[in-house]
């Protein structure tokens, strides 16, 4: 099966502070990968490094068959068209309506008839259950709606890989479960490969993807949810049984 992401021996440091070291991970076609770990373990840094927002100190990041770190600006730009990112707080542009936010990547990257753009946007919003929000501004949306709108924008260009940073953070359990269901539907129906950063147990169980667990900037476990739940590595066991004393 084709590897969409292939990372080897990745090292990231902020000044003299080492954040990630010796990271090896991969993502296959139509797979869901869940990066998990306790707060401050480097999950979000890993995500930002993969999408090119944080430069690594060393290592190799191959995305969709191209070495991301060796690409020039135009090639990086065209590679980024093939990935979608849903940020933790949505990162919608507040000066644009939800419809305009979702249309933005389409308008910037494709020369399409405006009516067709509107139909694509409405289809996307319909997919995430926000048909009524087309003309609303982000400030008029609830937290869950903002996340769904952000998801619709991330999906605008039909990305090969979708990255989600803490999709359920700050949401009530019902809305968070709705977002997870939506991600599963996208994965199963559109075949979108998804990388999710989270530390929410319920969400991890629902998504049932391949887990990549970090601890102090290093990968301590890779495998299925079932394997993690029966794992005897102390860090993994503590994470999945937080109330149980060792």
């Amino acid at each position, binding site marked *: 099966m084709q590897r969409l992401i292939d990372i080897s021996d990745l090292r990231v440091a902020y000044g003299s502070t080492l954040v990630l070291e010796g990271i090896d991970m991969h993502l296959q076609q139509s797979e869901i990968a869940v990066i998990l770990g306790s707060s401050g373990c480097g999950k979000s840094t890993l995500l930002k490094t993969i999408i090119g927002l944080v430069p690594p100190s060393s290592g190799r990041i191959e995305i969709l068959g191209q070495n991301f770190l060796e690409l020039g600006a135009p090639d990086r730009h065209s590679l980024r068209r093939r990935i979608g990112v849903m940020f933790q707080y949505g990162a919608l542009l*507040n*000066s644009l*309506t939800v419809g305009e936010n979702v249309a933005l990547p*389409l308008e910037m*990257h*494709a*020369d*399409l*008839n405006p*009516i*067709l753009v*509107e*139909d*694509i946007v*409405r*289809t*996307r*919003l*319909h*997919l995430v259950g926000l*048909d*009524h929000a*087309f*003309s609303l*501004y*982000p*400030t008029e949306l609830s937290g869950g709606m903002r996340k769904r709108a952000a998801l619709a924008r991330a*999906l605008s*260009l*039909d990305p090969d890989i979708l990255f989600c940073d803490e999709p359920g953070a700050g949401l009530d359990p019902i809305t968070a479960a709705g977002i997870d269901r939506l991600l599963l539907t996208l994965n199963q*129906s*559109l*075949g979108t490969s998804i990388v999710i950063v989270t530390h929410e147990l319920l969400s991890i169980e629902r998504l049932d993807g391949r887990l990549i667990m970090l601890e102090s900037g290093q990968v301590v476990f890779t495998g299925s949810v079932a394997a993690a739940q029966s794992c005897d590595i102390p860090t993994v066991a503590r994470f999945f049984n937080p109330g149980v004393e060792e």
Partner: protein
Amino acid sequence: MSQVHSDAHALIFSGPITLDTIAALEAQTRQHLADHPLSALQVNLSAVTKLDTAGAVFLRRLPALGQAQGKELELSPPPPTLQSFFDFIRLPPATTSRPENKQGRLESLGEQLLASRGRALSFLYLMADLTVETFAALYKPKGMRRGTFVEQALAIGAQALPIVALILFLIGAVSSLQSAAQLRQFGAHIFVADLLAIGICRELGPLMTAIIIAGRSGSAIAAEIATMKFTEELDALQTMGLDPLRFVAVPKMWAMLLCVPLLTIMADLLGILGGVFIAFTSLEVAPGAFVVRALEALLLKDVLTGVIKSISFAWIITLIAVYRGLDFKGGAAGVGRATTSSVVASIFAIILLDCFWGVIFYLKF
């Protein structure tokens, strides 16, 4: 290679139908529809090799596209490998556009007037609250953090001094040059000192200082309060039993009321110094003679009126900045709007107040 061609009864699509190909396919489809003699056509999708969401939406829209050109189009199923994806992507049932504003002009004018009345009332309430709190806090400074006033005074006064000094020095110099060009024709260039001293102390010193402070400190106050509102810091203060107005706005008002008059006096001196510099370098007037002449021309009233004006300018700049900050709506763009409108409204208010003081101090009834 994606393309569309037609036979006797159908439009036939082949190749990938994706975001990258649909713009060209749409143009080709329109051409085929225009050229085809039949009014009802099948759309054959059996040779489509790839679909994405944009492509599926394009195909779903084809009947509407045909209808616009007087053709009836019927979609045939895509290949089995793409069928489930094609079934998943459906156009929403009804596309409701942005609701149109159907208000008449009179109605919208009325609405605007009512909104203006509301804004004016809330500004007046804030004016009363902030003014009362400013003086009340002098006697009972509870609810304010120690050291805030000094921090604000440094930011508003000390840090603004270099820019105020430089601008007023240059204004004094330019004013001297301009007036000397006229007065020299009558051999009266020594009167440049009178003109400059009176003009700077009565008018230019207070006015220019206030405009600089409105742009520099007024905007900062509006942005800070708007951001605090956005990040719920003001709500947090309230839940801690603190009055946001007293905690945030009163130290700024005090700092403005103290620093703007002091800056104005400094500005007056620097403006006159600019004149001294020009007199010495280009008017052949000795600095000492220029200063003596300027002091003879000045009355205490000229300096005092400038200081009184500057106090009122400080009060209105702070009031408007606090109001615009509290009136903030929206996200990052809202902070920008609050800042801009604070500066524009402050400058307008400063000019209005300046006219008011001009009438009070100098109009002979």
